[in-house]
């Protein structure tokens, strides 16, 4: 392991690996990435593998559509050979009230301003796309045929491989013990394998970001929360799009290999680092899923697990320098949608760290909460 670096990135999930690649692509030398376990071992590898552009705020739409463009041309952009299992069979968002449908209409207007090809559908049209869908109580739906699925492990490994080719040093199973500072300036990172002297540290540690930043004596307005998920045995393909509802609270898609993967947002889940699976989740999930897609009832659940959402006050990411400490940066608070935004976030963070003009016109800095410029994202499960 190097004992001196220009930039140390803490976190080997998809966001950290994308940042590492984009810094190296900009010509930054001596970039070192640290991961306490294996790559994608945190939220990246535990997520629902969905990639969508149907967001409610303009900047989430922008980052999502720019990221989708990179997913679509992944091997060309990164100059690697790797199948990321991109499946663009759409996201079907279900509305169960007029109010929810109105919100979808507003969202679609924002999406259209960025050329995201989303449309509004009647329940009958929704059923044409998903014949097994129970359309009882359904008022309407929003649909974007270009949304879909990608494999989070393969995307992360793709970024890692491309970063390494450009000279980034990736250290797996290397745990950060402390961030050393002096006079409000970063001096280096202490790990269980030695000290790395560096002037810049980017923390992209998902659910553990606030703990890493705390090592430097600072607090962030984010917290972590358990979200559970399950997967079924592989069966023949019957469901093209990701099904999602914010009010009924569910997401469910069939992956390219034929497994269904699904989850819902927990109610009254306390902030924690708990990643245990619960019986309650399996039971509630089974009821929700079989009501929405009745033929699922005979399919076997084979595995359930959990991961951490890292939640910010406005449910939008924080991609920012930290003003109180020269040389410290964070990419966190993704609130459950870090995977699908990671390609664009990597580009954005590389701009911030190198002091270049931002590629995207977005406001994701930490100071927005002090300025009161909070526009909450309405479309989160």
């Amino acid at each position: 392991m190097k004992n001196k670096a220009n930039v140390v990135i803490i976190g080997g999930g998809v966001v950290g690996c994308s940042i590492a690649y984009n810094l190296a692509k900009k010509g930054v030398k001596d970039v070192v990435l640290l991961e306490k376990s294996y790559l994608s071992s945190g939220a990246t590898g535990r997520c629902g593998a969905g990639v969508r552009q149907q967001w409610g705020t303009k900047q989430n739409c922008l980052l999502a559509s720019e990221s989708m463009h990179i997913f679509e041309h992944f091997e060309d952009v990164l100059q690697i050979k790797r199948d990321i299992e991109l499946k663009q069979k759409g996201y079907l968002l279900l509305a169960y009230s007029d109010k929810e449908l109105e919100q979808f209409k507003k969202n679609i207007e924002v999406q259209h301003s960025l050329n995201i090809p989303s449309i509004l559908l009647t329940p009958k049209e929704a059923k044409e796309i998903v014949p097994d869908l129970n359309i009882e109580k359904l008022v309407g739906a929003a649909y974007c045929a270009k949304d879909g699925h990608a494999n989070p492990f393969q995307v992360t490994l793709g970024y890692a491989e491309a970063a390494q080719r450009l000279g980034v040093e990736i250290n797996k199973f290397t745990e950060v013990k402390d961030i050393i500072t002096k006079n409000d300036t970063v001096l280096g990172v202490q790990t269980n394998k030695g000290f790395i002297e560096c002037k810049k540290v980017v923390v992209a540690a998902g659910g553990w970001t606030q703990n890493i930043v705390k090592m430097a004596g600072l607090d962030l307005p984010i917290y972590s929360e358990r979200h559970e998920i399950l997967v079924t045995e592989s069966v023949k393909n019957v469901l093209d799009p990701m099904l999602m509802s914010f009010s009924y609270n569910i997401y469910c898609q069939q992956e390219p290999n034929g497994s269904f993967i699904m989850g819902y947002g927990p109610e009254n889940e306390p902030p924690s680092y708990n990643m245990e699976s619960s019986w309650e989740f399996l039971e509630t999930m089974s009821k929700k899923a079989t009501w929405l897609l009745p033929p699922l009832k005979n399919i076997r659940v084979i595995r359930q697990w959990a991961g951490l959402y890292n939640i910010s006050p406005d449910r939008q990411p924080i991609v920012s320098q930290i003003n109180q400490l020269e040389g410290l940066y964070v990419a966190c608070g993704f609130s459950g949608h870090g995977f699908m935004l990671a390609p664009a976030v990597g580009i954005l963070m590389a701009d911030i760290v190198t002091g270049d003009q931002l590629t995207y016109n977005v406001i994701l800095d930490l100071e927005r909460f002090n300025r009161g410029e909070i526009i909450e994202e309405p479309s989160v499960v």
Partner: protein
Amino acid sequence: MDENKVIICRCEDVTLKEIRDAIRKGFTTVEEIKRVTRSGMGPCQGKTCGLLIAKEISQMTGKPMEEIELQSIRPPYGGITFEEVTKGTVMENDK
């Protein structure tokens, strides 16, 4: 022995060659190999291939078997249909 014809993970059709290639690329834990090759992600959840993969890792890296962690065991222990969960159907062994 043709390592292309030896199936290590029967649920996901992963060959010995694929396992060995992953280890050569530096994926030297059962958890990483699971994510790279899908070994252990099928209906049996690695009950068959887990030990075989651990043995390959041990042989190729020289790390003793007892130091190689198997993959996390996640619920439910055996496959269970959504209907069995929602209806509380009696499992076969309990009849």
